[in-house]
């Protein structure tokens, strides 16, 4: 679940930034390092430490080995949301929950129970939900009652330990069936840190925001600007939510972490069908790490109305019918989105299956030290970067979800892949974590980007980039070229313009899709970059930021999206 920060409705608006947030989210603690004694003043951490000590000392089955590593993590989530439709509130809900995730490892750092092959279908399914392997989850009490808190941890640790013993035996047996020994250790040993950030509290002016989403979702019935097309709007919804995740982590190496993350989000969304039946939608989302970052009621209303009129415009826009091969400009939003969709996954380090000689499992598994981007691009991931161009970066953090301090990692230097993102699962040549082991609440950690920054050596201005795009079209004798302003998921543009080569005039189009757009396009087709990076803050359980400049691709395909056009409504909406 990710929410794009900023505007997603129109290119013109996408340029207006709403990223100003007054409060630092992940500011690195600069005070003197926290101590265990301080940690023990927190009732949750205290209960975790007591139960951890007891398990470390005594969790052992007769004739079996003791765990060499135990980790307790408790995610405390407070969530509020309200929903509206057609100008009326449809729901409101607040919840508070805690889930514990317990990792127990047997064996040693070199070879342990993790990633044992699972042949049972039910276990495979559980693993997809983040269970099994080296972890077990338990629903925890929300009262700070030490005995009840320890009860959940005790149960989960017991199950995790028994499962770990079983898995280690399976993995040892499996090892005998393969020729190539593991290319790296099972688990990286890390220096323990103690980090105690204050727990945050939900602060949202609920009445105001309920009113805002009620009004925003009711614009189709109330605003004169919508009168002309209100009957064509099918769904008109609003939602606001706030969420605090406070994470508590302790492990037998001595790490103690408390960190807290806030997220506020409000959105109006509208859907309609064009006359040919094509489903179209527009939304106006705002997100922030502090409630006042969501902006004023007036701005929310204006943005919502803009999305609504934008939807009407889109419904009337011509459809992409003829397939196109040629230059395509990805504006900052689209460029950042494509890096998140394609590139981010390829640089995550995952140990390959036992017996494999591969370095990792992703698309870049054999690309170490080879060129993956044009030589004028360099990419780093730096979770310690808390602001950029005066804007707060949502993906920043000081310590990851395995208790490892965040580190700046250069992933691509002058076009060449030089590193991967690592959690505590090593791969060949990368024996240690670089502080990118990140986890959603209750889920297993895995390497993920924090603040991914794409830097262009010879960036050019926006106008120049567009001129270049048009010139390339002219060279290829094309009647028009394309510019993607906002990219939805994967290859589906939300906002795309057709630019006439003759006079540079723009026309909004719908129903188009990028074809043959993949990592190969990143390696071979990028010919120029802009000089003004776009900041895309991605909210969700593992918050991330991508900073990328606009990119000009010399050869992409734009084609008609293969979607079924549904029937228009069988009868008109009520005429009120």
């Amino acid at each position, binding site marked *: 679940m990710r929410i794009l920060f900023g505007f997603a409705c129109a290119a013109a608006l996408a340029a207006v930034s709403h990223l100003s947030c007054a409060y630092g989210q992940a500011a690195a603690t600069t005070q003197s390092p926290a101590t265990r004694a301080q940690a023990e003043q927190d009732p949750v951490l205290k209960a975790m430490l*007591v*139960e951890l*000590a*007891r*398990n470390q*000392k*005594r*969790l*052992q*089955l007769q004739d079996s080995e003791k765990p060499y590593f135990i980790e307790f993590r408790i995610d405390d989530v407070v969530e509020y949301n309200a*929903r*509206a*439709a*057609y*100008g*009326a*509130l*449809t*729901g*409101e*809900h*607040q*919840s*508070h*929950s805690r889930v514990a995730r317990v990792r127990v490892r047997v064996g040693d750092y070199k070879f342990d129970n993790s990633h044992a092959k699972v042949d049972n279908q039910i276990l495979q399914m559980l693993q997809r939900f983040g269970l099994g392997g080296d972890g077990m989850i338990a*629903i*925890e*009490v*929300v*009262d700070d*009652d*030490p*005995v*009840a*808190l*320890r*009860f*959940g941890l*005790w*149960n989960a640790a*017991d*199950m995790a*330990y*028994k499962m770990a013993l079983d898995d280690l035996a399976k993995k040892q047996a499996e090892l005998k069936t393969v020729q190539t020994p593991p290319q790296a250790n099972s688990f990286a040993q890390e220096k323990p840190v103690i980090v105690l950030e204050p727990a945050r509290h939900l602060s949202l002016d609920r009445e105001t925001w309920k009113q805002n989403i009620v009004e925003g979702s*009711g614009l189709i*019935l109330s605003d004169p600007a919508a009168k002309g097309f209100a009957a064509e709007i*099918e*769904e*008109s919804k609003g939602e606001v939510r706030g969420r605090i995740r406070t994470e508590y982590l302790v492990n037998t190496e001595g790490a103690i972490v408390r960190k807290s993350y806030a997220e506020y989000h409000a959105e109006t969304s509208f859907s309609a069908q064009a006359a040919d039946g094509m489903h179209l939608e527009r939304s106006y989302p705002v997100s922030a790490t502090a409630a006042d970052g969501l902006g004023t009621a007036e701005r929310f209303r204006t943005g919502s109305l803009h999305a609504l009129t934008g939807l009407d415009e889109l419904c009337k826009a011509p459809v992409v019918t003829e397939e196109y091969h040629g230059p395509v400009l990805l504006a900052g939003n689209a460029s950042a989105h494509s890096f998140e969709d394609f590139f981010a996954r390829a640089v995550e380090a995952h140990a390959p299956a036992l017996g494999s000689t591969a370095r990792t499992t992703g698309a870049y598994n054999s690309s170490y030290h080879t060129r993956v981007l044009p030589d004028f691009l360099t990419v780093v991931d730096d979770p310690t970067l808390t602001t950029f161009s005066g804007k707060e970066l949502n993906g920043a953090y000081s310590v990851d979800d395995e208790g490892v301090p965040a580190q700046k990692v250069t992933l691509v230097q002058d076009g060449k892949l030089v590193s991967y993102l690592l959690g505590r699962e090593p791969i060949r040549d990368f024996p240690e974590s670089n502080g990118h082991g990140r986890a959603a609440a209750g889920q297993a950690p895995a390497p993920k980007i924090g603040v991914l920054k794409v830097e262009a050596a010879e960036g050019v201005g926006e106008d120049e980039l567009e001129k270049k795009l048009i010139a390339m079209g002219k060279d290829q004798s094309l009647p028009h070229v394309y510019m993607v302003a906002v990219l939805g998921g994967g290859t589906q543009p939300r906002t795309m313009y057709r630019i006439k080569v003759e006079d540079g005039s723009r026309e909004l189009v719908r129903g188009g899709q990028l074809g043959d757009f993949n990592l190969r396009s990143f390696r071979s087709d990028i010919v120029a970059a802009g000089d003004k990076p776009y900041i895309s803050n991605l909210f969700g359980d593992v918050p991330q930021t991508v900073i990328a400049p606009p990119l000009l691709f010399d050869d992409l395909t734009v084609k008609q999206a293969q979607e079924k056009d549904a*029937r228009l*409504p*069988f*009868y*008109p*909406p*009520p005429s*009120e």
Partner: protein
Amino acid sequence: MPKFRCKFQILSLAMCFSLLPHCFTAAAQSAPASTSASPLLDAMTAELSRAMTSLSKAVQPNQQPPYYIGYDAHDATRLNIVAQQGAILSSEENRQRTADITVRVGDWKVDNTHGLHRTSALHSIELPLGDNRAAIARTLWWGTNACYGNALQSYLKVKSELAVQAKEEDTSPDFSRQDAVHAQLAPVAPPPLDRKAWEERIRALSFIFRAHLQININMVALTVSSVNNYFVSSEGSRLVYPHQLIRIVVVAGTRADDGMDISLARTFESRTERDLPAQAELERQIQILAGQLDALRTAPTAEPYNGPALLSGRASAVFFHEVLGHRLEGQRQRGNQEGETFTKDVGKPILPAFLSVADDPTMASFDGTYLNGSYTYDEEGQPAQRVELVQKGVLQQFLMSRMPIANFDTSNGHGRAQMGRMPTGRQGNLIVTSSKAMPEKKLRQLLIEEIKKQNKPYGLYFEDIASGYTLTQRYTPQAFQVIPQLVYRVYADGRPDELVRGVQIVGTPQAALKQILATGDKPGVFNGECGAESGSVPVSAIAPAMLFSGIETQKAPQGKARPPILPSPTAENATEVQ
């Protein structure tokens, strides 16, 4: 298709509790408020009428208009508090208005729900919480549009399937004709509750388990639900009626040294807070449950058995719900997938002549015990009715929704479903009565005589049964299985009864039901949740204790994991390890 037709259980999911209809007598006391307008009901009525009119005007080829539209809205306020080991796991309040939209295309005889397309008539939506009429109308429009689209598509499929398939055995219509129903009972406001005080009470109840160190799973949950239902249909029905329920569920589990997981559950239901057992009584009941669980953990495991057995009233009630009740649900008598065990037996004996069975959802309580399966109107807007299913052993009729079957062409108010599911004939309060009743002491003597007669070392006494399931489809054996919670060996030689664990009752309905020799004179009540294709619905079953000449049991499946290695943290002095 799901393999298991029914699962009768105390709770379907740890955190998912069903609503429970308001008791009939109390509802009837509310003055019919035809004058007091309900903006929601008015908006639903107006939009339904507009939909019927607009859609009958549509004149595209192959676009049949709907012949029936129904809106069924539930305005529900719920409070859920769950505790474990003496602390709160979650405490949430929630209000939601949802509506099930039903659209039927074709005609009464053949429509879009024919055969396996039952669910094509239904679409669920979330409605605005307030009285904003324009928003309510627009939401209903969009939902109805989607529902009609599905119904239309399904109707075309039905038509083409009927054209190529062999003639069906039961050619009953797809929808019964019923009179419009009008009733506007006063909506109820959610009961004022002291949430903090309830959190404290649930915490305290859950705290009892701390003293039971071997119980490593425990949960105490409170659900307070207050629902107002609003129903309108194109037949002209207009209904407003409330449901209220307050329920406490206790579940606990332990693991025997041999790896067998054992769990017990107990529920307490009432319509109002006032009618719940006092805290001291709840505590006492939980103490008993915890004690039983401790005893079960070390009890010997049972061996497969076939011989005389005595079922307590509660156990017999669950047994009848499972073994007989489900097979008397109307829709199971129709279609070439169903086993149709009793379909052709109307007018014939299917039980010993001393037994009669009825289902009476209009009964709000029995002997002071609140009945979970009571309701005033079913999910098709039909008034609840008492139905005599079996009289003096002879089958009379079935539990009917608005889906007709051969010889039964109307509903008898048993079309039930959870929100979002298509209603089918379901049980409400199943009541078994006997004319061969005797004091339970006598029944026990008869059991011992029967054990001796059959030359068995012991018989079985089933004190409590919590759940079970029944297979009713043709490609599975027509078998049932019920999961007892408390089972004792009763020795003929006068030794005390011996608690055993790991028992499951298995059998086939026709054989099992004929083995009943006599019954007790004190009915037992079981309140629970029943799950089947139309979802989870609250039910009750009432029956006297019963003596069976033969009951077959099998071993329960057993895990192999060991009990926890470390003692529960409760047992440890926290300062011991530092």
